[in-house]
């Protein structure tokens, strides 16, 4: 049995099934993302693991033991909330020390571990500040430090990066991945950003209306989507003769499916084409290698390897 095992986990709010029979095993040290559109039940799943929402059916086991029988305060999980949920009336150091204090860790040891963890997230110099004196990214790292310092069995992250701007988000993704690698904590990340899920995870769980559509490593889910929903959710896709073909797999060739370039958009490192063909309007992505590319209105032939 996996380290953390969700068995047919369900939650109904009245007649509405927010989570519908979710089964998932997470191995020790693994980084798993719950990915899906808004309202598909990601937060509800996380809250059930954390103990703030009571499941209406199913089981959660941690190392084979029934986690639902354990009170939320005793589960020993580290949680980073979407809103960070820092204690606004405590300094950064006090925020991070809170969990250790609850565990009864002695003062000297506490101070040492707080300093260590703040160093890990790169906030050593900010210990005396209050949350409102920090930027969004810094607050997010405090939240991460606060969750990590108690050496949780599992780290639960609910869209921790969604409030950050694109550049900061990317930096934080890399940092988050590095920290998780260093500490080796089993991590479950909730996100609706497919790029983020693919960049960070060992495996992703693509969710739709409370169900898992596919559970697979990012590369596999992208290349071999189990359902049209997964194919669409994980990036642009063309449906040709009932088969999903990724736009970057299609090339301009001297022969193949004939078509006319409708639009051409330059996006820096690649070109995005819309090509009118007998199989409908196809999206084509070509790397920008500096060469000349077909212009709008040009007649082209498209070729791709069978997926």
């Amino acid at each position: 049995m996996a380290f953390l095992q969700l068995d047919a986990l369900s939650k109904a709010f009245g007649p509405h099934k927010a989570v519908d029979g979710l089964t998932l095993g997470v191995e020790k040290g693994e980084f798993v993302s719950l990915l899906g559109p808004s309202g598909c039940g990601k937060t509800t799943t996380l809250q059930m693991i954390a103990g703030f929402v009571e499941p209406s059916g199913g089981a959660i086991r941690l190392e084979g033991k029934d986690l639902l029988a354990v009170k939320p305060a005793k589960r020993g999980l580290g949680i980073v909330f979407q809103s960070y949920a820092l204690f606004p009336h405590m300094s950064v150091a006090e925020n991070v020390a809170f969990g250790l204090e609850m565990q009864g860790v002695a003062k000297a040891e506490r101070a040492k571990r707080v300093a260590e963890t703040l160093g890990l997230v790169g906030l050593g110099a900010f210990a005396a500040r209050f949350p409102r004196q920090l930027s969004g990214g810094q607050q997010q790292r405090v939240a991460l430090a606060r969750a990590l310092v108690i050496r949780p069995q599992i780290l639960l992250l609910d869209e921790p990066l969604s409030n950050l701007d694109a550049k900061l988000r990317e930096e934080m993704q890399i940092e988050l991945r590095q920290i998780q690698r260093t500490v080796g904590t089993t991590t479950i990340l909730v996100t609706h950003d497919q790029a983020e899920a693919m960049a960070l995870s060992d495996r992703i769980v693509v969710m739709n209306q409370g169900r898992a559509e596919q559970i697979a490593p990012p590369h596999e889910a992208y290349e071999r989507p189990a359902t049209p929903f997964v194919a669409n959710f994980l990036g642009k896709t063309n449906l040709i003769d009932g088969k999903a073909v990724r736009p970057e797999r299609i090339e301009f060739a001297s022969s193949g499916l004939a078509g006319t370039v409708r639009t051409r958009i330059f996006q820096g490192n690649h070109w995005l084409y819309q090509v009118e063909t007998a199989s409908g309007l196809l999206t084509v992505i070509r790397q920008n290698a500096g060469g000349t590319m077909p212009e709008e209105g040009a007649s082209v032939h498209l070729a791709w390897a069978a997926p």
Partner: protein
Amino acid sequence: MSKNGPIALIYHTLFVIFMLAPIVVVCWVAFTPEGFLSFPTTDWSLRWFRAIARYPEFISAFWQSLGLGALSSALAVGFSVPAALAIARHRFRGREAFTALFMSPLMIPYIVLGIAFLRFFTEIGLSGSFTGLVLAHIIVVFPFALRLTLASAIGLDRSIEHAAVSLGASEWTVLKRVTLPLVVPGLASGWALAFINSFDEVTMTVFIAGPGTATLPVRMFLYIQDNIDPLVTSVSACVIAITVAGLVALDRAYGLERLLVGRGHDGR
């Protein structure tokens, strides 16, 4: 911040004058040497301030009001916290009814409350007692305390408390270390508003206060029924001075804005 236009400036000036005029007039008249309310007075004297010393019942009534206001407001705020948390977080049967019940003292004319309390306290042997006054004042100031505690309980982010729980805090620890500190600004302003209402409540209190428990407004009210001299204006001026001094001291010590609004003046 945008600058005020001339019309807004005039409006605000008029408004401030409207607010301050009665206070200024009262303080002004307090300095008259005449034996009646003369305004505007051209001579100045401390006669009526010295006169306060000859009426020790005003001074004891002041302490009475202070104690009554502080105690009943503190108790009202204390009771309002669990009520506010319950109303803010739970959807239980009778929730609307409870809220309406808690707010109802606002709707009932104070004179009616005064007569009702008088009857009731006579019945149970509390008439004219300090305990009776405290009970009655808790009830009339409770809606003010509840309004503000409720506002801060509703504004509280549940996930902050969840974060504390996930870090291993017991329910009691969460309340003590997280919930209460976060609602303190609400409690402080609730207490202040309740205190002010208790301090100047006269319509109801006049019915239930005994000779030994009369509050300052009741004393003043009774005094002006028999006298036309400016003694009450000098008493009022003293109360105003004490209030201003108290506010300044509070602001120096804690920052009024932080205490009542929940933010420091440095805009943090």
